[in-house]
């Protein structure tokens, strides 16, 4: 189904917003199409912000998937599948739709969280962005997926872990709001990887011991000698090949990688040093045993909600110890496992505040 039309409309945005909540699919899609068409016609950033605001109003986590048709200009994308509609012919559309739905259901079922913002925010997914686009990202309002270049990377919607990773960036933004650079940024990245792993394991009903703890194993083409983008079980071992070298992720504070807080330095290595808290979560999950989303996931999720924009590794680790105590008791098995997990990556935890790392 295509809802992309070029018409102008004088219906006020607040009415269109109300129509987005209609139980009638046709009305809902027409309202959404009209909002998007208005942005395309006017091409104004202000209009785009207005629409974004309308689309993030409570909507019970309803999904809308848009086809960018290889453009990088999202407002020109076409709505191709909405909540309640059947599969379409486009595999990427269905994968994005199903992946966002699984992730939404995970947060709702496991953590009693209603979508990204906890208030039913709509889930907007964009597929086929650009040509040969080797990435997926969260733009602050929407999740965007590339097809890959077909040589190194394939369709990023093919990985449930990647979809959950991007949605989880929205959850982090609406909770801790971790700044996206240096340690707070690496923690932000790690929380998304943790969500990606938990959602995948929840979908497959795998215990911590059964899971592979790989992030993005599905995004490489068969030509590429790489296990995944990252390994939470063994950071630094996800790939090692002639084309793009060895996985640079550290698995311990002794190997923390100092990088400049620039685009070239990955904002202080946010995708590099995330290996350290990733490994800590893996150690916690396997230390406690069973399903990662039970006690380990609950401790991490509550700690994320208790964190601030500038929380770093040590601060987060200390929060997890406190949360384990609050949730499971002083010197409980879970709290002991938290201590051991952080110790395994070179971070000693205590319930008294510590100074920030210089």
């Amino acid at each position, binding site marked *: 189904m295509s809802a992309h039309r070029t018409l102008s409309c004088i219906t006020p945005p607040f009415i269109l917003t109300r129509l987005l909540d209609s139980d009638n699919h046709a009305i809902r899609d027409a309202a959404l199409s009209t909002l998007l068409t208005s942005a395309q016609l006017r091409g104004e950033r202000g209009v785009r912000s207005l629409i974004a605001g309308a689309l993030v109003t409570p909507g019970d986590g309803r999904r809308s998937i848009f086809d960018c048709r290889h453009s990088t*200009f999202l407002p020109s994308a076409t709505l191709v599948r909405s909540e309640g509609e059947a599969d379409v012919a486009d595999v990427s559309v269905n994968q994005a739709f199903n992946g966002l739905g699984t992730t939404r259901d995970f947060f709702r079922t496991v953590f009693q969280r209603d979508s990204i913002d906890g208030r039913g925010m709509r889930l907007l997914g964009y597929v086929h962005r650009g040509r040969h686009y080797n990435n997926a990202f*969260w*733009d602050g309002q929407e999740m965007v997926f590339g097809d890959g270049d077909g040589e190194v990377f394939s369709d990023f919607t093919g990985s449930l872990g990647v979809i959950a990773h991007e949605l989880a960036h929205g959850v982090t933004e609406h909770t801790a709001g971790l700044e996206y650079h240096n340690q707070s940024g690496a923690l*932000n990245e790690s929380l998304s990887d943790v969500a990606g792993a938990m959602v995948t394991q929840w979908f497959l009903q795998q215990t911590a011991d059964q899971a592979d703890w790989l992030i993005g194993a599905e995004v490489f083409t068969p030509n590429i000698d790489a296990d995944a983008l990252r390994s939470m079980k063994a950071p630094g071992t996800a790939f090692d090949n002639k084309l793009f070298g060895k996985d640079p*992720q550290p698995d311990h504070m002794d190997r923390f990688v100092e990088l400049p807080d620039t685009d070239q330095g990955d904002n202080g290595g946010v995708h590099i040093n995330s290996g350290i808290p990733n490994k800590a979560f893996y150690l916690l999950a396997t230390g406690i045993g069973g399903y990662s989303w039970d006690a380990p996931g609950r401790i991490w999720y509550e700690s994320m909600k208790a964190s601030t924009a500038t929380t770093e590794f040590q601060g987060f680790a200390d929060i997890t110890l406190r949360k384990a105590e609050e949730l499971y008791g002083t010197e409980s098995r879970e709290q002991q496992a938290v201590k051991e997990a952080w110790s395994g990556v070179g971070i000693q935890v205590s319930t008294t505040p510590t100074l920030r790392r210089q």
Partner: protein
Amino acid sequence: MRVSLTTHGGLAAAITRQLPPRVADTDQLSPEVAAELRGLIDAVRGDPPGRPDPAARDAMTYTIVVEHGPEPTTLTASDTAMTKSFADLLDWVERNAA
């Protein structure tokens, strides 16, 4: 004229940061294709990029360096602040650079 593209960030930042720049040299292009490239570069120069959205996560940034004359020109953009002219140039470089 020599044009090089480097890409940073993104979900696969650990990989992309280790990839070499992609380079196109107009000496090795047909006159028509070289003229097309010059036109795309001129369009970007006249169309300044927007400011990247600070709320974006895993977005990529692109740096295109044009070496022609005494001073190289550096053109940058990100996934969340991509002008059409830059997108067109990026698409050209990705299709034609080695």
